[in-house]
């Protein structure tokens, strides 16, 4: 019996340890926000060379384009709660893309590389919708793009 008890004890502590880790991870709840009310002021983003002529050794192939969005996020489910909102820009074709943006003040300006997300709002949710006009600038290497290419991003809510 004594031998059996000593075998059980490590198993018990192992279960406890897993339980603690699981509980900690479960606290961070991320939800995609309904942004169906968002409108683009331009139908597509016209990508142009950042510099009209290339460098002597090649490179200098950056293409940039801007677009303006009237962002409207439905944050009704989080009304009267403190939350953090992120702009999530998933890794996607055609490859590495960077986008930066300026706002009119409701959200924070910033920059994100594809495959990452960045905080754009932190604080209490006092209204059912959060709105702002965001002017985005996309940039990517011209060797990655030769035709119209859709890229997607979305807004995520982290609840405190």
């Amino acid at each position, binding site marked *: 019996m004594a031998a059996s008890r000593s075998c059980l004890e490590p198993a018990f502590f192992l279960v406890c340890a897993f339980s603690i880790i699981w509980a900690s991870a479960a606290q961070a709840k991320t939800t995609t926000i309904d942004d169906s009310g968002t409108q683009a002021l331009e139908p597509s983003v016209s990508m142009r060379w950042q510099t009209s002529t290339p460098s002597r050794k090649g490179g200098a192939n950056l293409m940039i384009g801007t677009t303006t969005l009237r962002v409207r996020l439905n944050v009704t489910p989080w009304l009267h709660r403190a939350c953090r909102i992120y702009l999530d820009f998933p890794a996607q074709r055609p490859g590495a893309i960077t986008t930066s943006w300026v706002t009119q003040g409701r959200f924070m300006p910033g920059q994100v590389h594809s495959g990452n997300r960045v905080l754009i709002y932190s604080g209490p949710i006092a209204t059912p919708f959060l709105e702002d006009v965001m002017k985005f600038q996309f940039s990517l290497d011209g060797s990655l793009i030769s035709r119209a290419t*859709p890229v*997607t991003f979305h807004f995520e809510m982290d609840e405190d």
Partner: protein
Amino acid sequence: MHAPHCGNRLRRAFIGVALFGALPGSVSAFTATLTPVAPQTVYLQVGVGSFTGDYINGGQPQNNTTINTVSATVAAAAVGNGTAQAMTTNSSATQSFFDGFTFCSVPGQVYIGGFYRTTGANTSAALVTAAVPAALTNATGSTIPFSKISWTSSGNADAGAEPFPSGTFANGAMQNVGSMGSNSWNESCLTFSYANNTVPAAGTFTGVVLYTLSSP
């Protein structure tokens, strides 16, 4: 016996509906379509050219319709003696419009350079061709084959292969004289010479070679 069980099922169903009710009505991701606009640009300069300033200072390419000349005057005593005659140009282009670097020397060299801008990963090189007449002619119709004119290629502080390599004109041909990899600046200085190994009729012989840059 069965009533409590059904009640349990109903309660679960109700909780399920309540949870769905808390979700936003329509979750979506925003899509922006990135569209390359007029991405292809070509620039070729043979002899003098025009930029609004050096490129690294924001200069932009301009049109320049100047036709430069390359010439040699062979002394009567030297005509046809087999000693190549250096040719000189009226071009004043010595500096690269890329950065203002003095790349060529005049009157001994003709600047040739440019670039080819395009998008996408699989891009072929742009070709520079020369439309070469069969011969230079004088006022009485005598001729000198264009193949008597050659050039060597170099550039101040240059090392390695030139984008516009040394060569000799091919009579009456559309001749490849160089290529440009996409999205890089390409330039060379051409030093022309006349072979002077035949004795043509006296006179002034002229001909025009037209250089063309063709993108894929």
